């Protein structure tokens, strides 16, 4: 299998936070959704991949090469969580600048996206709203025939209509077999829609990296009464992930490969957000996974 991106043993240590031995792989032609709480390490991971931040250990392979230099970055489109274009620049000028940086810059495609996003060509970026700046960044990332998109909260600050439009554009991007996307997002419904793989990161640790459909088939939501919870033995209880107890019942995620607890507990497929939330809660409490 060919991989667009492979990360092995990636580490970065700050005072107060560490990204610890992250291993993940993005097969070519797939979308990997990276999800986690604020401060979990998603942006740090993306910055390490791009060499924006220097890694303390580990390797990053882009398109099979350990070198992450200008040549490899020709094929990568990047959208950060905020736009870094200077306020004094206009989109037309940004196109001229990018034309002299990216070998495959496609000005017509860039202008096409600007038109689609209703962004004025000759207005300074400082007059743009946050959403407009994000759309500008996305247009730039999609306009140089990239094979890999690295997206850090690309739909943040966008209204639902535009978010839907942008997700359609990402889906169109994926029509090419050798195109891949690594997308970091809080909006799990977006990931549920476009991602093939889900990677969950919490407090600098990668909790899981799995095919989305397999994840949702394997980890089911378990719901029941306090009495049913009390009736479980210690082994069954320790297998529950992210147990949430209330006065009238409990909810947790369980791995059906380990078997289901006996009794009439309700076991049903959960939404991606529900499953991941339980994983995060479980991680905070140190649940076995």
């Amino acid at each position: 299998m060919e991989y667009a991106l492979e990360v092995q043993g990636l580490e970065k240590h700050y005072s107060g936070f560490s990204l610890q031995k992250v291993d993940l792989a993005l097969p070519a032609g797939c979308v990997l959704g990276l999800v986690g709480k604020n401060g979990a390490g998603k942006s740090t991971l993306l910055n390490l991949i791009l060499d924006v931040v220097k890694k303390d250990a580990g390797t990053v392979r882009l398109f099979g090469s350990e070198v992450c230099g200008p040549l490899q970055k020709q094929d990568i489109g990047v959208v950060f969580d905020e736009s870094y274009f200077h306020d004094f620049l206009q989109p037309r000028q940004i196109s001229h600048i990018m034309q002299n940086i990216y070998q495959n810059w496609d000005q017509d495609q860039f202008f096409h996206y600007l038109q689609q996003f209703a962004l004025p060509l000759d207005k300074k970026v400082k007059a743009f709203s946050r959403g407009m700046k994000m759309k500008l960044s996305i247009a730039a990332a999609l306009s140089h025939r990239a094979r890999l998109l690295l997206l850090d909260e690309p739909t943040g600050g966008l209204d639902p209509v535009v978010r839907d439009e942008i997700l359609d554009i990402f889906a169109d991007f994926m029509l090419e077999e050798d195109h891949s996307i690594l997308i970091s997002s809080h909006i799990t419904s977006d990931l549920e829609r476009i991602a093939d793989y889900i990677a969950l990161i919490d407090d600098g640790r990668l909790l899981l990296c799995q095919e989305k459909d397999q994840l949702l088939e394997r980890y089911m939501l378990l719901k029941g009464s306090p009495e049913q919870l009390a009736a479980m033995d210690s082994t069954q209880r320790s297998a529950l992930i992210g147990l949430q107890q209330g006065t009238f019942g409990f909810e947790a995620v369980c791995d059906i490969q380990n078997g289901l607890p006996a009794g009439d507990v309700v076991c049903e497929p959960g939404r991606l957000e529900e499953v991941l939330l339980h994983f995060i809660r479980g991680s905070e409490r140190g649940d076995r996974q």
Partner: protein
Amino acid sequence: MKGLILKDIYIFGSNIKLYIIYFAFFGVFSFFSDASFFYGIVMMMLTLLSITAASYDDMAHWPRFAVSMPLSRGQIVTARYLFMFIMTGSAAVLLSIFNVVFSFFKTGISLIEGFAVIGATGSVGLLAGFVILPILYKMGAERARILMILVMMVPYAALMLANALGVKLPAWLMHMPPAVYVALVLALLVGGGLISFGVSRNIFEKKDL
């Protein structure tokens, strides 16, 4: 790299009208007084535009984005220094033309003196840039601001103090042939430039952005 220089030109190009009015005002003012003041102002402003550009880059967090593009960190630093040399060169050309025109219309002004002032202020501007740029790369624009002011003010303050105390330059320095002065200044610029570039590049290569 060409894209990075173009970016800086576009950023300052948006203020071109302001610069033209500013320089025209000083140009007319200096026509009736001392041209060397005009040469100094224009040369320093244009030479240090690279510093201003680096500050703008810092405020926009542009370096993070630049590194994600197909540019090496070395190229990003090189573009910064190249922009400084382009601005200095452009200022020198413009002011030289002004100097020639000026000398036709105003008697008693030495063409050679004018060129000497242009060369001297250009050299001072470049040397200031060579000191300030590594500081900017190390500390960022916000934290480096005070140091940048000191770099500009300390030599001036030292000269003022020396003048007030009656300190004079050694006789051998005062009577050196002009060609030796030029050679010394050129050597200082080349050496200073290489050291400055090396330090800036080293800092930026290792920096977490």
